[in-house]
């Protein structure tokens, strides 16, 4: 691999989050370096998704801070996170089911569009030109993910594996600097998993996108990621290169040994 991992782009420091009495994250500190593929693993309910939700602003932690590209914040809003260049996918696919693949991808470009409300409402020249420019960008994503054949298909009619791919496409359409993938391979068959792995590696390689992913499939994590953080009961219990983590006794006890 020819990529160069840079300085930390995202730093999560001492983040604690609880819902009522239930503790989801406990003083988690976690960093992601530019251009790397960072995995978060852990048993069910370990707080992995909560961590992603904190990063993109769905949840607001009670303690700790998040700094992205050097801007330290106590909490972020999803809109701010998106504006700063964070895109994501969801564990249980959150696509716009009634819309076509093309329209779904176009929503990914929302923040890149600049024409004003009046032009939009009247679909005037500038808005129209802008639409075409963004369409060209979207076509690159379509080509990249090899989904030309489903451009005009309503997303709700697609099989699960393709929906996952479209969801990745919508995130890519935003040309993000940080891509959060919540179990991108959950529920896929072997071939679909291989395709998805290839896409993740290609995104990282060709666009230099920094990727944080949650994944259950250990072999996938080991193959894909540069560094792995392990969560258990809302705490980080290990962090390091895949091989180190695999040998870590605490990880074996908490995760590999017990849950699997």
């Amino acid at each position, binding site marked *: 691999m020819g990529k160069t991992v840079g300085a930390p782009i995202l730093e999560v420091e001492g983040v604690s989050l609880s819902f009522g009495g239930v503790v989801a994250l406990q003083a988690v500190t976690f960093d992601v370096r530019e251009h790397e593929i960072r995995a978060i693993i852990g048993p069910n309910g370990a707080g992995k998704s909560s961590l992603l939700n904190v990063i993109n602003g769905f949840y607001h932690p009670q303690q700790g801070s998040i700094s992205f590209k050097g801007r330290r914040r106590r909490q972020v809003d999803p809109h701010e996170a998106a504006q700063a260049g964070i895109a994501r996918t969801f564990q249980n696919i959150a696509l716009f089911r009634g819309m076509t693949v093309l329209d779904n991808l176009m929503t990914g470009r929302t923040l890149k569009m600049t024409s004003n409300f009046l032009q939009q409402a009247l679909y005037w020249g500038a808005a129209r030109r802008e639409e075409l420019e963004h*369409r*060209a960008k979207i076509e*690159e994503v379509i080509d990249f993910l090899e989904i*030309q054949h489903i451009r*005009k298909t309503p997303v709700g009619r697609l099989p699960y594996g393709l929906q996952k791919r479209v969801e990745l496409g919508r995130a890519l359409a935003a040309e993000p600097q940080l891509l959060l993938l919540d179990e991108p391979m959950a529920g896929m068959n072997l071939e679909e998993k291989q395709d998805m792995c290839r896409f993740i590696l*290609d995104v990282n390689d*060709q666009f230099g996108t920094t990727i944080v992913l949650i994944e259950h499939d250990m072999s996938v994590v080991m193959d894909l990621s540069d560094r792995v953080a392990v969560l258990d009961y809302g705490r980080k219990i290990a962090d390091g290169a895949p091989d180190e983590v695999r040998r870590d006794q605490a990880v074996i006890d908490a995760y590999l040994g017990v849950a699997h």
Partner: protein
Amino acid sequence: MLLEEASTDTFPRLLLKQVEIRPDRPAIREKDLGIWQSWTWTQVVERVRALACGLAAQGFRRGDRLAIIGDNRPRLYWSMMAAQALGGIPVPLYQDAVAGEMAFVLGDAEIEYAVAEDQEQVDKLLEILPQWPRLRRIYFDDPRGLRHYAQAELMSLDSLEAIGRDFAGRNPEFFLDEIGKGEPSDVAVILYTSGTTGNPKGVSQTHAAMIRTAGVLVEFDGIGKGDDLLCYLPMAWVGDFLYSYAQVHIAGFCLNCPESPDTVMTDLREIGPTYFFAPPRIYENILTQVMIRIEDAGWVKRRMFRAFMGVAKRAGMKILEGKPAPLVDRLLYRLGEVFVYGPLKNVLGMSRIRVAYTGGEAIGPDLFDFYRSIGINLKQLYGMTETCVTVCMQSSGDVRLDTVGRPMPGVEVRIAGSGEVLVRSPGVMKEYYRRADATREVIDAEGFFHTGDAGYFDADGHLKIIDRAKDVGKLADGTLFAPKYLENKLKFFPYIKEAVCFGDRREKVCAFVNIDMAAVGNWAEKRNLSYTGYADLAGKPEVRDLVRECVEKVNRDLAADPALGNSQIRRFLILHKELDADDGELTRTRKVRRRFIGEKYDSLVNALYSGEAGCHVETQMRFEDGRAGTVSADLAIVDAKTFDDAAARKAA
């Protein structure tokens, strides 16, 4: 313009001719990033020049072979042309072949240069490299995923073109000089045929053979510059070379490359080709999709579809063929065109089709009639790689389901004593590449190619292909006995899943039949006929009558055919179990193993021929869960009505 006097006897010279005639018309289109990009003939020749000069600079010499592996992409076609311009021979390979199969072809054709579409194909070639180290250069079209490949053999086609432009700058005369050196008798392409046994063989076709054959085709259907063709069948298939490459360069129309193999249906709709070829399987897939969508549609649409398809069935074919049809039907058909057939053809991308062909295997009557009845001029043809396809073709207005048409102009067809079809034509191959022995086996001293198919001419001079020659036998009285032909006729009925016919060196033809569980089950449910399983359903007298009607329809057809009239099916029985590959009765590709079945069920065969009314049978069989067990049944033997020639004519 480019050459003093552009002659048209090799493909590179045809390209120059097209550039001269229509420099600025589109020669090829490809959908890329959602938009149809096109290249004019002038642009094409520049790209071919760059590729050819690049190849030459890399050491590619006259007579060298260039492997072409990938989907139908413009640059892959241009690479073929570039190789030919240098006097080399393109060898297109099937893109879905596994590395092992490719390794054989690379070795057999002694290939040192290869053009691969993408990472997938490059990976296969790199896997083969240790076995075939003579592969010197691999050029790729799409660089995606190949950034970190460091192999010295690899180079992108972009780089190759850059080298070529540089080379051409220093040797401005080179490209045209090389084209000038080409001879019509040079081999234009080597196409590997799969062959049912043994390794594939490379069919060497010359420029002259391909150009003359394509010329005949262009004239036959009046193909011209207004036509559009979508190339979506493998480049390694002779038809693609003939239709998408040879015809295009002769008639000068535009070739359209699909966006990806998955988008062919959408691309068809957007392009609306005027000329279309597909094997029966593809027509069947399209029809199935139509039917599924109709089932999903609202009831208004469904009712309309049913009603107008009824009209089409009644009158569509007559109208297509310009035969008289009742005025009411004509009016209804017009209406149907507006509401059903037109929109349907539009969705299928078939609204502009002038001629559509199918071939390669027998097409079911329902399928054939469906397309023709909605006004698509679907025709059949017959031929193989070794003859540049084009042996017989049906001409518009003279189309029949059970023949493949008359021999094409310039093609001599002869039927050998054994019933085998022999062909002599300008399109017969030069040789199997480096296989003089195999070539001698199929091309005789008079220059006739032995097709291996058995057939005969009917009274109107149409060729009828009945079977593979080696499977055809004779009845005791000398009548032709073509078991597969009879079996296929039976299998065209939805109720019959498999059939096995016996009769070689016997006095009459008898058959085993497997019913189609889904179709017959459905039929039985509509009649409130209860059954417990296959054996029970197969044993019902009502089902026997149903099958008997099918058999008798086949017999009536056969009676009308003087050559086969005697091979009507006299007696049959419905087997108590489904023939199964696990029991060795079918091959893995679901072809019946006639001899094995005959031996396994010899008591049944004997009963058929001894005139008994029934027979008891016990069979070992393997169940789906892997257990072995015995099934026993008492099977009834049914006598089917046969027809004599005159009666059949009257009935028809």
